[in-house]
């Protein structure tokens, strides 16, 4: 099922009564979600991700704009008529019901011609439970299960009615790191197996990048960029997106363009920016954009070398960079013990320039 969002906007009256101005939770969101894809909705806390999801779900009516599921305008439909399944951050399992009862709950609501017999319900519940691999735990109560298992029950409950759209609001944030990794793969698998159009909300960029077909990066209610995860990472449209994606984060420098050359402090690190007018810019360099090089143009003070698992990173400092520089390098490139200085050359594709005032990307 293709989902189309047209100029979707949501305003809330300000909770602080003294401020008359409305809170704009989502501002003019336009996007077409192709059928059968998994979309990661990504952004910092309070940027309007849940609000967007609730509007797609039907729990919140949009202030303006339209929502289409395929060719149906669902903007004014209540959630139960949209054919959506939703998984909440806190799972929202009914604590007094067993797993089976929880999964059957949506089915028991069906009326009229759709009404199911008890046997049909149990059959469907079991089938869905098998899909998420909790069919052994059908008679447990939620309190007798681990976080990951509860999560699966929540997914099963959302899937059992065979919805056209699956919505997940930060479904992994209550799990520990390891279980998160495992469960996100699981969600990916289930999504592939069912081919259901899925919107996945998260504020964890790594999570979104790793399982999404496409990611949507939001900031303060506004969509900043939509695209394939790798494309958004490699080609951010502005400073916010560049900073938000990537661990370790992008390294930022106060830089200057003079005669088509990029200067970091006194070091001329790149050439060929002839289309860019002279003046100050912000240069963002990805950690993997640094190559240790004895004759490299960027001269930094060496602070530490950290080897963590398969990654080796060099922590350095430079007058043009406010904080620490973190570079991920090949193991053989580590500077010798006791060195005070490290020099880098840069991979041009990993260097992005941004307007110092607006944060917009300046393309070379």
């Amino acid at each position, binding site marked *: 099922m293709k989902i189309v969002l047209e100029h979707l906007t949501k305003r809330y009256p300000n909770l602080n009564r003294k401020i008359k101005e409305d809170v704009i939770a989502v501002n003019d969101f336009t996007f077409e979600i192709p059928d059968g894809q998994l979309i990661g909705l990504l952004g910092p806390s309070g940027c309007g991700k849940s609000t967007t999801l609730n509007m797609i*779900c039907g729990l919140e009516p949009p202030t303006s704009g339209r929502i289409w599921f395929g060719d149906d305008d669902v903007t004014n439909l209540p959630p*139960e008529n949209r054919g959506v*399944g939703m998984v909440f951050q806190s799972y*929202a399992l*009914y604590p*007094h019901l067993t797993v089976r009862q929880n999964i059957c*709950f949506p089915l028991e*609501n069906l009326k009229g011609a759709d009404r199911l017999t008890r046997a049909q319900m149990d059959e469907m519940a079991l089938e869905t439970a098998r899909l998420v691999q909790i069919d052994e735990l059908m008679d447990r109560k939620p309190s007798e299960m681990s976080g990951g298992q509860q999560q699966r029950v929540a997914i099963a*409950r959302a899937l059992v009615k065979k919805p056209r759209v699956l919505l997940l609001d930060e479904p992994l944030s209550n799990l520990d790191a390891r279980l998160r990794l495992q469960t996100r793969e699981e969600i990916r698998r289930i999504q592939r197996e069912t081919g259901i159009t899925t919107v996945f909300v998260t504020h964890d960029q790594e999570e979104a990048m790793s399982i999404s077909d496409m990611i949507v990066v939001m900031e303060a209610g506004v969509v900043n960029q939509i695209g394939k995860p790798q494309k958004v990472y490699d080609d951010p449209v502005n400073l916010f997106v560049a900073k938000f994606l990537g661990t370790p984060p992008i390294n930022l420098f106060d830089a200057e363009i003079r005669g088509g050359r990029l200067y970091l402090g006194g070091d001329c690190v790149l050439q060929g920016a002839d289309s860019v007018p002279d003046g100050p810019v912000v240069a963002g360099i990805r950690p993997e954009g640094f190559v240790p090089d004895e004759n490299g143009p960027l001269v930094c003070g060496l602070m530490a070398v950290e080897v963590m698992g398969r990654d080796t990173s060099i922590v350095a400092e430079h007058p043009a960079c406010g904080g620490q520089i973190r570079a991920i390098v090949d193991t053989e490139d580590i500077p010798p013990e006791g060195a005070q200085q490290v020099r880098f050359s840069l991979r041009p594709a990993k260097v992005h320039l941004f307007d110092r005032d607006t944060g917009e990307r300046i393309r070379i």
Partner: protein
Amino acid sequence: MKARGIRPWLYLLPALVFLGIFMVYPLFDVMVYSVEEGYNSASQTYYGIGGYNYAYVLRDPYFLQALKNTFILVIITVPVSTGIALLISLGLHSIDRFKEFFQTVFFLPYVTNTLAVGLVFMILFKKTPYSDGFMNLLITAVGGTAVDFIDGPYWAKMFVMCFYTVWVVLPFKILILTSALASVDENLYKAARVDGTSRMRIFTRITLPMISPMIFYLVITGFIGAFKAYSDEVAIFGTDLNAAGMNTIVGYVYDMLYGDSGGFPSYAAAAALILFAIVLTITCINLLVRKKAVI
């Protein structure tokens, strides 16, 4: 190691001493009184030990009347007050404007003295040579005949009694239930809405089970409270409850001790222990039912 063994008891000692003096000893003492036949408090003597006091109390028509009154009171007021409190709490929970204001309004009677409330009920229900009372005005206005609620037929008095009791216990129950409703996770309702659950089903399958521990709590404390009713009766019908036919078990105990026909601590003790046994039984049944029920 040794100190560790003594220390907790040392901390508990003050509480244990007080509980012992004011709870365990009197309970024990009451048991002793209740089996001492012909006890005379002036000379501190008795004839013998046996079940005579119980037999007397259980045959005393005043006690039987009190027992009947108490049971009617319990059986009517506990479900009615809990039900009304639930309805009001649901209403309070669903409004969003002026919520605090209405909560305060509904809680106010709780901090009002029961005797003051009794006075108001007198004005509402009492028939005097000058007026029939507010309630009778209403009844005659709709074409009924006036009834004397305070000195009249038994059912009228019982009605006032139950009305009064429900009124007095309502605020506390509303307070407990509104906070229980507020503590139900909002996301459960959202999830139910996404699945197209009807409002009735949301109430019976989600809200009720989620607040059921609090309802059980209110039912048990309601039972205990209603079994111990006494002061409310005095507030409406005056101190001579036997004459009014509206005595309760606790009222009977009091009369046996200090009333006009009083001075029989043994009968009082026997009646008190019968009450104790009833409350204990009902509470146990409640707890058993609760174990069987949800959650």
